[in-house]
Every structure is written in structure tokens, then in C-alpha cells.
């Protein structure tokens, strides 16, 4: 009698059905040497991809679900959140994507593009979930989502789903091959800006900064134990125009202590451009305040 359903077969069938349904959530982005990357069909006119792995080209060939080939132009890239968007020449099918909630230990299903119009699948767990974090390129990522899923190079950039079909985010590689997801919330926040401007506008002073310990003799007058030392100043940049010199130690930005870079990062978002800021700094043993006007950062 087969009254008693076989749970393993049910589980397997459910997964296979999910993957079949997710086929139109991915496209293959063709690269050189017969390789490809995966992109997420985010909207009918927008494909989301992993910025770090996308070669610096203006145009790519996409293989959409079912195998049709179309061209797409890069519409924006943001290295700080690892999100790039491409705009296909003709609209394509795209599923409606709803954000999932990442929970440690929950099942995670990562979808990739097989390069011929089909999907490839990987199953694992959400390895750990943490609070928001700043990338090494200064971008804010809404949650830390580390996956115990063995994603292949060609599958990077595909969506990762939870058991309820919610999208946890886009798969990508962290240091040493660790697989992480760029959360759906981050993509939802960044894509409209990229779509509008082609980039994420950021404030710029024209300095390179490294955290240093404030010398003992100056701790009392500085009223803090660390700051950001100016390692170099870009000629003609806002900092240079304000007379900031290499060797100055920035203590605070508009009153926010500059113990670490990420503490002051929020002062330099898109809305900061054109704004005046007061920098409290140490120069030759003296604490002083310098005012400068934030300019817009141009692509590196």
C-alpha cells in the first residue's frame, strides 16, 4: 500500500518543481572562452549580476530561459555592494520576486543558469545570519548571509531561495571562496539608483585614510584614542582645496568621532554632495577644525 507518502520523494519532487519554476528567474551572461556567469531576471527589463565577476565591457550576450539569445547593455555597476545591472535589448520573462527572511539553519536553494536556457540547482543551508555590514569597498549590505551551499563559478549571481520560495538574495563569493548572499533588501535599495543614474553617487573629499592611534601626549586634547590619518591628498580635490595635508589625523566629521572609517561612512552618502562639513583634526600636535565642501566621487 502506498497510502503513506514517501517523505524523501515528496521533498525531492518539491525541490525539482521549485527549480523548474525558477528557470525564468535566471539568465546566462556569456563571457569569453565559452564561459558564462549567472544573472537574476530581476524585472522584465533588468538583469542583476555580481559586479566583481562581470568583465568591464559595455555589452553582453544573454541566454534567457528557453535558450533565446539577446544582447544587453550594462546599465550600472556598484562595486561597493557588488551589484551590476544589465538592460536587455528586448524585455524578457521574469518572475515576481518576493524577499525571504534568512534564518540560520534554514534550507537554501541556489539557482544558476546552465548556459543553454535551463537552470542548475544547489541545495544547502543558511550557515549564519548577522547584522548589516560594510564591504571593503565601503558599501552597506543590509544583512550578513553566509550560505553552506556549494555554488559554482558559472552560478554566481543567481538567486537563492528559502523553503517558502522567498528570495534571500543573490549568490556571490566572499574571501576564500565563501558563498554569501547579497540580500534582496540591498538589491531592492540599490537597483533603482543604478537604473536612474548608472552608478551610486557618493561623497568625496579626495583623501586616502588609515586608522591610527592618537599619540599619548595628544589624547587629552583630542579626547579620543584613535582617528583617521590622511595618507595622501588628491590634487585639486575638496580636501586639498581646504588645505588638508598628508599626516593630518581626522578626529571627527560634523561631530561624529572618526575612530573608524565605517563610523563616518554615512556622512558621505548621495545626499552629502555639495554639503559643507566640519573636520576636527590634529596637525603638528594641535587640534583644529577645517571646513570643506563634499564633492561627488567619480568612478575609479
Amino acid at each position: 500500500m502506498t497510502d503513506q507518502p514517501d517523505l524523501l520523494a515528496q521533498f525531492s519532487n518539491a525541490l525539482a518543481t521549485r527549480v523548474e519554476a525558477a528557470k525564468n528567474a535566471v539568465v546566462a551572461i556569456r563571457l569569453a572562452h565559452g564561459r558564462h556567469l549567472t544573472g537574476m531576471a530581476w524585472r522584465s527589463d533588468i538583469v542583476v549580476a555580481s559586479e566583481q565577476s562581470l568583465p568591464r565591457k559595455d555589452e553582453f550576450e544573454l541566454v534567457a530561459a528557453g535558450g533565446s539569445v539577446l544582447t544587453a547593455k550594462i546599465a550600472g555597476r556598484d562595486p561597493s555592494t557588488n551589484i551590476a545591472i544589465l538592460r536587455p535589448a528586448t524585455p524578457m520573462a521574469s518572475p515576481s520576486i518576493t524577499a525571504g527572511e534568512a534564518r540560520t539553519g534554514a534550507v537554501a536553494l541556489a539557482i544558476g543558469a546552465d548556459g543553454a536556457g535551463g537552470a542548475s540547482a544547489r541545495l544547502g543551508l543558511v550557515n549564519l545570519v548577522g547584522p548589516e555590514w560594510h564591504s571593503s569597498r565601503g558599501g552597506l549590505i543590509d544583512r550578513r548571509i553566509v550560505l553552506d551551499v556549494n555554488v559554482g563559478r558559472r552560478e554566481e549571481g543567481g538567486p537563492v531561495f528559502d523553503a517558502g520560495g522567498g528570495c534571500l538574495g543573490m549568490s556571490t563569493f566572499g574571501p576564500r571562496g565563501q558563498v554569501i548572499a547579497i540580500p534582496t533588501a540591498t538589491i531592492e535599495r540599490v537597483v533603482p539608483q543604478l537604473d536612474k543614474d548608472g552608478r551610486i553617487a557618493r561623497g568625496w573629499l579626495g583623501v586616502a585614510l588609515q586608522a591610527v592611534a592618537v599619540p599619548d601626549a595628544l589624547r587629552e586634547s583630542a579626547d579620543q584614542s584613535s582617528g583617521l590619518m590622511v595618507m595622501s591628498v588628491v590634487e585639486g580635490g575638496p580636501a586639498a582645496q581646504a588645505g588638508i595635508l598628508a599626516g593630518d589625523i581626522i578626529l571627527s566629521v560634523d561631530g561624529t568621532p572618526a575612530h573608524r572609517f565605517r563610523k563616518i561612512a554615512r556622512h558621505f552618502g548621495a545626499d552629502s554632495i555639495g554639503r559643507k562639513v566640519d573636520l576636527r583634526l590634529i596637525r603638528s600636535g594641535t587640534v583644529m577644525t577645517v571646513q570643506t565642501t563634499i564633492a561627488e566621487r567619480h568612478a575609479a
Partner: protein
Amino acid sequence: MSEPASKSVVAARLRVVVHAVDALRRTALGRVVAEAGHIVVDAQDAADVVLADGDGPRGETRPIVSLGGADQDLPGVLSRHADPNQIDAAIRAVAAGLLVRLPEAMDSGFGVMRETDGHALLTPRELEVLAALAEGMTNKAIARRLNISLHTVKFHVESVFRKLGARTRTEAVAKASERRRYETMTL
């Protein structure tokens, strides 16, 4: 005319095209290739490998060893400052059908902003001492340059070692430069 690529390329003399926009750089790289026992050939000649300063020429179909190029999909990717041994090894490996990458490339990936703990941050003076160490200066020479006593220099060097977790001067310089590479932010 051109003979088929030998099966054992490791021992063979390889035909190498040197691609560099800058003529001086092209000459220098050509010399490196020749001194490694290979033959430098013209771009239109039959060749086993293309050694390119930066990204390779567009449409190149032969295996490329790139020095400091942005295209990470090429068979060989070295830094712009690769030494002759690395260039020779990469040319041979790529000709044999292998991929060549720097260890740092494996460590790349989209990661968290690295920030040193407060107690391990260096002071401006310690950074000056480190810069002098990087130049190979002795404690005595550092004392003279910074106009401080030998005793104070030793004190700073010890503090630098402790904060960086280094046992030797070379290790301290290497760790400091790695820290600077990962932790310098542009704003």
C-alpha cells in the same frame, strides 16, 4: 611551416609574442623572455604564448599571460611587477594548458571591511619607524632621521612588533604593508 606544439613544453623553447604599448617595456619584457630561454617572435608569427603588458590585444586567440591586466578570465594573470622567474613559469604553464593565478586572486572576493582593533592601531610615529624599517635602516640611522634617541627607537620598534604580531623586521614590514593595502580607504 610551424611545427605542432611539442608535448613536453616544460623543457622546450617556446615562441612568445611580447605585447606592450610602451616600447621600453616591450624591450625589457623581450629580454626577460629571451633570458628564460624562449624565442621572441612577431605578433603575426606562429607563437605558443602571448605575454601582454596589461590586457592582451583584442581578438587574440593564443593563450595570454597578462601582467597586471583587468581581465581575470585570461589563462595567465600575474601582477605588473611579476619577476622573471614568475614570468617564465607562467609562460611554460600556460603553454602546457594550465591556468596561472596569484594567491591574492584566490583571496579576493566580496568581503567585509577589515579594521584593526583599537589596541593594535599604530601611532603616526610608529608608522614613520616602519617606513624606515622598510628602507632597511638600522636603529641608529632611524634615530638620526627622526631625531630621537636610540632607546626611543628600540621602544617604538618593540611596540610595532607587538602590535603587528611580528618577530622580525621583514615580517613587520610585510604585515604593515598588507594592513595598509586592506585598510586604507579612499574618501
